């Protein structure tokens, strides 16, 4: 009787193990499916011509996504320039002043900001920047994306720096270093791999954001590098062209989807390599 009960429990445990295998595999399926589908649909559209030309008017075949590619890169660079310094400094503040009242509110705000739907951030940017300035612009799109990047950069910086031993800071202070040098020459360089990984992930995160750009950067069928004017971006192009009734435009959207996917994939892999390479052994 004892033996049969043990057998029963072993069988249950075995079944449970198999279940975890299956469910773990199930997590891989969506990505594989997406990759398969998009590569199948998009790979034939991509060639040199596709990358360096702007879309052609309806009825003409060919055309590319150069305007969206350039636009995405520009918008993301400007968003990074806004969000990264603010985010890292706020993260430094949070890890240095763990219990202050401002730290509490800052932490709470970033947590909530992270949960704010991106469309809401887009609307806010519209009312704060687009309406007062009287026109859609890439800059307002960058500001909206910067708001989305902030929480990720702040929290990853804070978490990274919190893990550094206090003895490191003491070593620097005992050598007579002023606070700002302790931060810039010791604390940030030692934690750089964690901070960078947060920065890269936040870039990967905003690369595919469409909603905040809908009524800020707006989109532009032509190549524009003027930040104060409407600008195209990859997700906007996909949104507009995929919902259009023209087959040529659908093809363009598929190709752009693949490019966007490869970009995010590359960023994620690059992050892993960089964090491993720059990790400071404590």
């Amino acid at each position, binding site marked *: 009787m004892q033996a049969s009960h043990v057998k029963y429990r072993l069988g249950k445990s075995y079944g449970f193990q198999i279940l975890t295998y299956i469910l773990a595999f199930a997590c891989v399926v969506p990505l594989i499916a997406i990759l398969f589908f998009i590569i199948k649909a998009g790979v034939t559209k991509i060639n040199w011509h596709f990358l360096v030309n702007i879309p052609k008017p309806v009825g003409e075949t060919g055309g590319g996504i150069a305007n969206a590619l350039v636009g995405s890169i520009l918008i993301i660079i400007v968003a990074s320039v806004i969000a990264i310094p603010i985010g890292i400094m706020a993260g430094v503040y949070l890890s240095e002043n763990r219990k202050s009242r401002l730290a509490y509110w800052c932490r709470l705000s970033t947590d909530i900001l992270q949960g704010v739907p991106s469309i809401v951030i887009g609307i806010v940017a519209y009312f704060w920047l687009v309406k007062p300035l009287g026109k859609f612009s890439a800059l307002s799109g960058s500001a909206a994306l910067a708001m989305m990047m902030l929480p990720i950069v702040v929290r990853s910086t804070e978490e990274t720096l919190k893990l550094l031993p206090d003895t*490191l800071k*003491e070593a620097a202070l005992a*050598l*007579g*270093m002023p606070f700002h*040098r302790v931060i810039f020459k*010791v604390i940030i360089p030692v934690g750089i791999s964690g901070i960078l990984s947060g920065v890269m992930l936040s870039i990967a995160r905003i690369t595919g954001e469409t909603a905040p750009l809908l009524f800020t950067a707006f989109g532009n069928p032509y190549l524009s590098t003027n930040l104060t004017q409407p600008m195209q971006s990859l997700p906007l192009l996909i949104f507009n062209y995929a919902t259009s009734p023209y087959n040529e435009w659908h093809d363009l959207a598929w190709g752009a989807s693949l490019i966007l996917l490869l970009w995010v994939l590359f960023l994620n892999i690059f992050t892993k390599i960089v964090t491993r390479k720059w990790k400071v052994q*404590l």
Partner: protein
Amino acid sequence: MESTVIKSRNFNASFGSNHVVKNVNIDIPRNHVIAVMGPSGCGKTTYLRCINRMHELIPGASSSGEMKLNEEDVYQMHPIFVRLKIGMVFQRPNPFPNLSIYDNVIAGYKLNGIKLPKAERDRIVEHSLSRVALWNEVKDSLNKKGSFLSGGQQQRLCIARAVAMEPEVLLFDEPTSALDPISTSTVEELFHELKVNYTLIIVTHNMQQAARVSDKTAFFFMGELVEYDDTKIMFTNPKDNRTQNYITGRFS
């Protein structure tokens, strides 16, 4: 007549409402090794960290009374100048993990943005590493990271880093408690050599170490400085009962 380098009068330190150092009066003579011993929680480390104003970095910490370095009140000076004149070595070796051995030694200059010609930097690095008997062991691997060294070597690297700034006083907070016996004896030998140029204040919970390395010993108990005298007298003929009990191992 030997001159006094550190002098405290009625010195008190606390963490919030916890009064950890009570009314300490002490005169520390130049170019001597002073051991500060006492049971855990007696305030010896706190007192040490008050000397170079590291104590005040802890939230809620406060201090009062007089602490003088060469007749100048440490608490009237800017903490940065205090810490440049009073170097510190910690309990656990803490070299900068992102810097090479070479850069660790001149970290006090490099990270403070003090520009030195290369020849001068080389001289400081070689001199400091020689002072801590580490030069021969690392001279071929100066570009490797500091964390590549063994624990004992790392601790000597940290001493070299403090020595490189040419301070007047060196504070050691239980410098050998994380080291093996061989590294401990290497570090202890250094104390004798270093006192020629510096004044050394060493916090230790190890009585044998205090007896081995120091010229004078201070005994702290419950935040008070119970007794302070020549090490020989402290260990052979202490005046206070509590010192007697401590060194004979009746409590620890």
